């Protein structure tokens, strides 16, 4: 077999390129966080509704749809639920469990929320819409979930919500469920680490 002396090669250029690939992949993981949220918001995947829940949601400046857009030809049943997450000593329930609405119609409903503890607490509600295909057509005009809510000791409040189901919603959608999960804001970290330590 023919044989030759190996030619010395400088590897550093290739190594640097490969390290850039690694750094890019690492950054990609973090870029996925906002990308994921944008994707869910645009498409309604994951039941994220079209209005951002943080203050000043995307759709707040939208005027209510003109009456001409109301599609009186069909009715959609909207069901409301709410859950209070562990660590928040509150109770919540919708004033109505369900209502029938025409697509395009502006509607209102309130949740009754009560603080059962003897101190003021701040919470944040996170909405979710099922089925996912309906989420992007469920437009919240006004919602207590846009802001953090503070309840004084023992206080009860009716928290309002105004919404429109857009007429573009698919014909196959006959029921939509809107559910809220209320989370404690300041207690959250402590309760988690407290449970971790308690075990």
């Amino acid at each position, binding site marked *: 077999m023919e*044989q030759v002396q190996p030619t010395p090669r400088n590897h550093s250029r290739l190594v640097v390129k490969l390290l850039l690939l*690694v*750094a890019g*992949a*690492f950054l990609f*993981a973090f870029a996925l966080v906002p990308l994921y949220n944008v994707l869910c918001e645009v498409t309604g995947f994951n039941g994220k509704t079209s209005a951002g829940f943080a203050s000043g949601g995307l759709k707040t400046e939208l005027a209510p749809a003109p009456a001409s857009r109301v599609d009186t030809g069909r009715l959609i049943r909207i069901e409301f639920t709410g859950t209070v997450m562990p660590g928040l000593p509150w109770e919540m329930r919708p004033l109505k469990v369900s209502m029938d609405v025409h697509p395009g119609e502006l509607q209102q409903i309130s949740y009754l929320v009560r603080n059962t503890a003897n101190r003021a607490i701040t919470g944040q509600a996170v909405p979710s819409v099922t089925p996912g295909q309906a989420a992007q057509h469920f437009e919240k005009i006004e919602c207590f979930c846009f802001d953090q809510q503070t309840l004084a000791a023992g206080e009860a409040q009716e928290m309002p919500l105004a919404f429109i189901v857009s007429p573009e919603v698919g014909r196959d959608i006959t029921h939509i469920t809107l559910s809220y999960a209320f*989370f404690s804001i300041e207690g959250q970290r402590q309760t988690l680490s407290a449970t971790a330590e308690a075990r």
Partner: protein
Amino acid sequence: MNTATTANGHADPHGEGHYSGPLRWLTTTNHKDIGTMYLTFSLIMFFVGGAMILAVRAELFSPGLQLMQPEFFNQLIGVHALVMIFAALMPAATGFANWMLPLMIGAPDMALPRLNNWGFWLLPPAALLLTMPFFLALFGIGDGALATGWTFYAPLSVQGGMGVDFAILAVHILGISSIMGSINVIVTIFNMRAPGMTLMKMPLFAWGWLITAFLLLATLPVLAGAVTMLLTDRHFGTQFFDAAGGGDPILFQHLFWFFGHPEVYILLLPVWGLMPHVLATFSRKPTYGYKAQVYSFIVIGVLSLVVWAHHFFTAGLPVPALIYFMFSTMAISIPLAVLFFCWIATMWKGAMTFETPMLFAVGFIVLFGIAGLTGLILADVAADAQYHHSYFVVAHFHYALFAGGIMGVMTGVYYWLPKWTGHMYSEKLGKLHFWLTVVSFNLTFMPQFFLGLAGMPRRIPDYALQFAEFNAISTVGAMILGFSQLLFAWNIWSCIRGGEKAEPRVWEGAEGLEWELSSPPPHHSWEIQPVIK
């Protein structure tokens, strides 16, 4: 024949001999030494991970809780999986790469020898970190190891005890080690091939490893990112995976499986690269479909990056996403089928003999085929709703990872052991090991398909009475499987110690540069490179 026998640590006649004994191993930059260390580490961790899961199988022998509390059970399964994947299978593949790549492509060593040394020596501390919480718990420190399963799903992993932190740290270190190893492989393959060896003349083993290395570089950093977010969620008040703060636990599943699915191909591509060499050798025929196999490797590598969500079809994904992930997953079976076809065609009408490596290779083809077929069943969204998180999945991925991964590695070990040590292993013991392994492997995992179909969930230490018989069978199988592996270790050990001298071309039909060298090869080989025509 050369006097330097690296495998049993004799003195080194050429340079590098600054140290002897342990310091030599700590400082070595020789690819053969490092390969030996990787393989030894892998074998040890294989037994560590195996012991953990035998305890689990013992608990599952009969319904009810006999041996352990559910918390400890959960810790054992999660750490078992991490040890097997990161500390047994991956280091075995890296050990192969270190030992064989330079020999097969005619290079004097790996391109970055110092990095190579570091890559290995990160492993033992990482393995220690992973298992240490078990021991700390004995002294009343913490509440044991990671108890979330190997997948670290939030929010459980956000709330878990300090075992999670240890595991996160261990995964970081293991990841850095693998990234170093991959960079080394890529640079070696791109820059150090013998003159005349174009990429399309390169041995398939090198091709398989090249794709693995690129997949590792593209996906391991994403896992590192995900567990870093987990760490900051746990300790620094971020809320990546916490719905209260606008985060999302499903996001973690996306990040994890963006790494996790390619990982299964990372584990297997080196084995798929090695198979055609073994099949061609013992069929005494050239490899069938070299190009088809190379393209299949590439296609599988690319596709593996875009199918991840099939691991959580039941998490509430929207229908269009379900359909996309179902079809893209099923599409992977096409290049995989091409590989199966090439393997079988290589054997077709060959003058076959069945030495131990060939037995393992044929066993691999049959059993890994079952893994692929059951994977297709799981990829069906409608069916997966029933099978997800059941023992069916456990059986599926053990056909993929034990029969496909571990048995593939054993194929390689028997095939190359005479080259490494210069001695023949005991063929009788090897064959006994093979038959005990296949029979007990099927005894262990075949019943788990039926348990899963009947509704037994995975990761639960207790089960309903109707599952008792099949679980008892599975446990008996697992015990035989576990203890048969001692034969493997014994066979390797005796082969290192001595035995019939091996020829340079150990196997009659073997082709390739590695067989032009003596067995064992000199400590420094291909310092004068061969020229490929």
